[in-house]
């Protein structure tokens, strides 16, 4: 606002005044300036505040709340307060003392009275497969025990005297837990406090993550092979023709993912057009099951992602002068050499941007695998949705979300670091 007042000018003392008086003037002027500046900053922040507050409420809090569920699960601690206290003196070896058994019996009774027994059983079951039925059975027996002492009832259920049971309960009584995050990577704590892989029959998630990465990589590669030559062609032909060709890229880009997925479900049917084409070309002898298959999923995702890979490559190819290639030819370079040494290094940032973007977006795919993939083609997002919708296991959904988000943000970090966020502009 008052940028004309440079400090150096203010610093020059007028003839009639002492140096210190000028210093005082300078200080007061710069204080006024700073205050005015502060007011301007505050005003511009106030303009942005409504959206920032709305985003914090509608988006920020939900994400933080969800992620917190991955490491914070007070269900067991809340349901078993007496057991937790009794276990605090336990050394973790063998079985805890009888008082702990009695405390657990009391906790189970009160959780039955409060109606939280089923929740507890489910939560324990996540850590200790098979615990659900044992907890509910014990609760019933405690109810019908009459005069029988609780300790006797507890000892009569073999489950509570098995070696693996109590360490899991002791772990569960800590509300802050790494259990779900570890499970999401198919890891667990062993009895010595070290980390180990879960047994192969319980391991599911690493395979799902690997599958997600594989599909993302395959789709990225396919879009690059299909998209790079087309980007090159569009960047090389005259303007009018380029405009027509770019429309061919933008039309699918502007159609929603759901609509394109719907189109592919129609095309990939057993009696659909793709099978017609394959038969007619003689590529296939019988009609293939493309729906609910990995290859069908990759084809559809490639179609959806192709513009995302192509557009950043095209936008950088457009800036390269054709005269550079001609110069390379005139200096004696063979076409392939000129392409490799002159053209490719310049378009490389665009290729990186397009491929990284497609790879990152593929990691989060949900709709297309849900509709076109089979049971063994579901990606990590589908597992997250399934844990919420079917298993009602929020903690596991949260842990998988946490890890997916870490991968996504790390890749975006790389993107921003080496390419700058400006390249993200697609609209």
């Amino acid at each position, binding site marked *: 606002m008052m940028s004309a007042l440079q400090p150096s000018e203010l610093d020059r003392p007028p003839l009639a005044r002492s140096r210190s008086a000028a210093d005082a003037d300078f200080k007061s002027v710069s204080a006024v300036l700073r205050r005015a500046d502060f007011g301007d900053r505050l005003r511009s922040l106030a303009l942005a505040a409504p959206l920032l507050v709305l985003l914090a409420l509608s*988006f920020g809090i939900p994400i933080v709340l969800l992620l917190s569920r991955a490491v914070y699960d007070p269900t067991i601690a809340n349901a078993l307060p007496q057991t937790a206290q009794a276990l605090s003196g336990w050394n973790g070896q063998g079985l805890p003392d009888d008082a702990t058994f009695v405390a657990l019996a009391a906790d189970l009774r009160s959780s039955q009275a409060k109606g939280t027994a089923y929740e507890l059983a489910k939560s324990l079951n996540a850590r200790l497969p098979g615990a659900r039925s044992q907890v509910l059975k014990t609760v019933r027996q405690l109810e019908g025990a009459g005069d029988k002492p609780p300790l006797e009832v507890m000892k009569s259920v073999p489950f509570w005297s098995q070696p693996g049971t109590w360490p899991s309960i002791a772990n569960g009584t800590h509300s802050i837990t790494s259990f779900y995050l570890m499970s999401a990577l198919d890891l667990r704590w062993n009895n010595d406090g070290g980390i180990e892989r879960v047994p192969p029959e319980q391991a599911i998630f690493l395979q799902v993550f690997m599958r997600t990465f594989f599909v993302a990589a395959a789709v990225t590669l396919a879009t690059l092979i299909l998209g790079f030559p*087309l980007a090159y062609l569009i960047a090389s032909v005259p303007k009018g023709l380029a405009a027509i060709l770019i429309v*061919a890229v933008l039309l699918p880009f*502007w159609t929603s993912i759901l609509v394109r997925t719907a189109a592919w479900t129609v095309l990939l049917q057993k009696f659909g057009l793709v099978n017609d084409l394959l038969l007619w070309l003689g590529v296939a002898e019988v009609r293939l099951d493309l729906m609910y298959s990995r290859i069908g999923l990759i084809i559809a995702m490639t179609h959806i992602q192709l513009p995302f890979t192509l557009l950043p490559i095209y936008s950088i190819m457009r800036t390269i002068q054709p005269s550079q290639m001609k110069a390379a030819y005139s200096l004696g370079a063979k076409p392939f050499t000129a392409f490799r040494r002159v053209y490719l290094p310049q378009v490389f940032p665009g290729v990186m941007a397009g491929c990284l973007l497609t790879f990152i977006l593929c990691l989060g795919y949900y709709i297309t695998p849900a509709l076109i993939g089979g049971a063994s083609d579901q990606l990590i997002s589908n597992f*997250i*949705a399934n844990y919420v919708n079917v298993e009602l296991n929020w903690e596991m959904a949260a842990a998988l*979300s946490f890890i997916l988000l870490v991968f996504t943000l790390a890749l975006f970090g790389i993107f921003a670091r080496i390419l700058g966020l400006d390249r993200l502009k697609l*609209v």
Partner: protein
Amino acid sequence: MLLSPYPTLGERIRIGLLWLWCGLVILFLIVPILIPVPLSFNSGTFFIFPLEGISTRWYEVVLGTQRWQAAIGNSLIVAFGTTLIATALGTLTAIALSDDKFPCRRIVMPLLLSPLIVPVVITAVGSYLFYARVGLASTYAGIILAHTALASPFVVVTVGASLTGFDRNLMRAAAISGAKPVTSFFRVMLPLILPGVLSGAAFAFVTSFDEVVVVQFLASANQRTMPLEMFIGLREKLSPAITAAATLMMGLSIVLLVVANLLARRSQRRPVAGA
């Protein structure tokens, strides 16, 4: 530009192969999105070419049955609500960000864009978890709020781009002439950045109208939108009505996005206003 003035045979073959490959890629891009269009006018109940006959019976199903009508209505309510909030707040934010005085832009900008970066399932599941606690699950307000988070980045970016061509001295001139800030916004700034604002609004509308994952988690049976009805239909039983719905949705988003892009281009090409 592709061919040198005196092309060799090898060069001709290479360029021919390039054209052939690109022709196939363009077919791959275009044919799948065009396929639902003829199928939606099929009079039969199957998705098989050749068509049995031309009819509009599937459009009558989509536009005439109560289930689809309700879905279209819900989609419009949610999309208009989202567009209104996202455009108003997004425009204000873009204006704030275009000011040199805006503090910590380097932190705020990525935060504003984060709804586009976070995988949508995480957003949907998180919203479901939080909105259920505060009574916003299964309400229009909840869906509109969640969609506003997804749509507002587009408004901030498009309006921001149109503001780069806006001369701030015009606002000073208005202030010197005695206009209050609100008056100078409506009389000076808004008319000049209007193409950018409208373009952002169109992006916001399409983002909400096409969105299905968040809706799937937040909507009860009463708030099913058109994409959700399509998603459910695709899961349960494939009916040609879906191709009609898909054609309608595709038509709407393509028209709106063509308009949005033309407006965005126009607002960015404008030279420094008044200069």
